């Protein structure tokens, strides 16, 4: 006898997989919604820039300040830029940016599509001769998949700048020396896999947000629930995907 909660989990997983499958089936067939895709890239990517930049800056600063005492204890203070750059670029910037996006974008998409569903706007779109899945869902998933990696590259840069300021709070490291150490440490094998995994983060965030919103019901209560569960599930998926990515990178000996 399968417990009800496990059955529900399997059903939901199946539905999300089918929903993602429908995205691949419909997104690459004409008619292409380029204008709506660009609009979504603007909302999802450009409008998230300030939040991502501020968070990344604080992250870089805090990680550097927190790491210093341990390195000082081992007499390895000079390694601070190296250590901070690897941890920021490989792990912290991609994951934290994805989590911020899961909160901001996932809930936004879930609430927007959810309220469109309960106010019959999605039906109205269908009656107007528009495939709402292509127009609303495919464009949002694609925009999230394309813009989150760009946000992560920006977060990498800003957090490293935060690290530079962090290093200079207690010590003195010149601008040139700091960046030389950072780029000497970082290899393509650090940067590329960490960016590749963010495409999957973006896809997961877009898909879950759209799935929850598109299948929203029970009026305004349902809209709130859709937004909430979109954040919870996509945040959890970011961690699961990150774990998988680390294992794959490790297996392929890319580190």
């Amino acid at each position, binding site marked *: 006898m399968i417990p009800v909660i496990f059955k529900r989990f399997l059903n939901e997983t199946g539905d999300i997989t089918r929903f993602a499958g429908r995205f691949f089936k419909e997104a690459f067939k004409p008619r292409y919604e380029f204008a709506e895709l660009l609009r979504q890239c603007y909302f999802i990517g450009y409008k998230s820039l300030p939040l991502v930049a501020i968070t990344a800056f604080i992250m870089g600063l805090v990680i550097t300040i927190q790491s210093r005492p341990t390195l000082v204890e081992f007499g390895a203070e000079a390694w601070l830029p190296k250590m901070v750059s690897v941890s920021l670029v490989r792990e912290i910037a991609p994951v934290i940016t994805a989590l911020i996006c899961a909160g901001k974008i996932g809930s936004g998409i879930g609430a*927007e599509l959810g*309220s*469109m569903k309960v*106010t*019959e*706007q999605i*039906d*109205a*779109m*269908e*009656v*107007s*001769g*528009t*495939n709402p899945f292509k127009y609303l869902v495919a464009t949002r998933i694609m925009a999230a998949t394309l813009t989150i990696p760009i946000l992560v590259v920006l977060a990498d840069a800003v957090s490293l700048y935060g690290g530079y300021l962090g290093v200079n709070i207690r010590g003195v490291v010149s601008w040139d020396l700091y960046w030389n150490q950072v780029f000497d440490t970082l290899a393509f094998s650090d940067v590329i896999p960490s960016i590749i995994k963010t495409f999957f983060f973006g896809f997961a965030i877009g898909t879950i947000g759209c799935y929850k919103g598109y299948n929203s019901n029970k009026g305004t209560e349902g809209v709130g629930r859709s937004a909430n569960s979109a954040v919870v599930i996509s945040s959890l998926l970011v961690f699961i995907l990150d774990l998988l990515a680390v294992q794959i990178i490790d297996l392929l000996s890319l580190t």
Partner: protein
Amino acid sequence: MIAKTEISESDKQTANETVIQLRNVSKSFGSNNVLKSFTFDLHKGDTVVVLGKSGSGKSVLIKCIIGLIKPDSGTINVLGKNIPELNNEELDMIRAKVGFLFQSNALYDSMTVRENLEFPLRRHKAKMSKSQIDELVVEALTNVGLAHTIDMRTSELSGGMKKRIALARTLILKPEIILYDEPTTGLDPITGKEISKLMRELAKKYNTSSIVISHDLNCVKIVADSIVMLIDGKCYAQDIYENLERSSDKKIQEFFI
């Protein structure tokens, strides 16, 4: 999968005069049988009001007609095409000729009034020039007396204005048939009456055939050529307002008290 139902010769002849022909349409949600062998005709130029209790399947009925919900069985012949058998492209072609006014208006929040009205035009009539689209948008807004709201956002409009804009959007493609889902719900009696009169005027002006779902007897009186009583999932009675109002049948009387 809905089995293809043969349309009889007599039905085909009738279909020449009718714009919508429903035969034995049934729809269930779980154990709830909403429509049970519902049969009904809408003739060209007529406005038929469907009257029924809440949850009796009125909205399901018109959503089946426009292809938003698939019936479990039966044929829904709209302008000569059986809706449940059409693919998406064929459905879009029919939908360009059938307007639908949603109960909640369903105006797109993220768009202005102009963009809301342009949306169906850009979708159904992609080859139309910008000036032609502008002309039609202004004409539709003038018809509902709201030309000045063209660049307003829908969130800035009152309930009555939203209903008029939704009506303008429904009419912009000059549909042959219009389906109204509770057009006066949530409006005060005066605005409700205005909307009802507007519906009547526009139906005459564009010679459209309409199905109106409504509980509002004031609206029903103004717009209806005839009334269909949807009771227990079936077309219980169809007649003009005055005859149904005088009916001795208790099930019918309930609606006119």
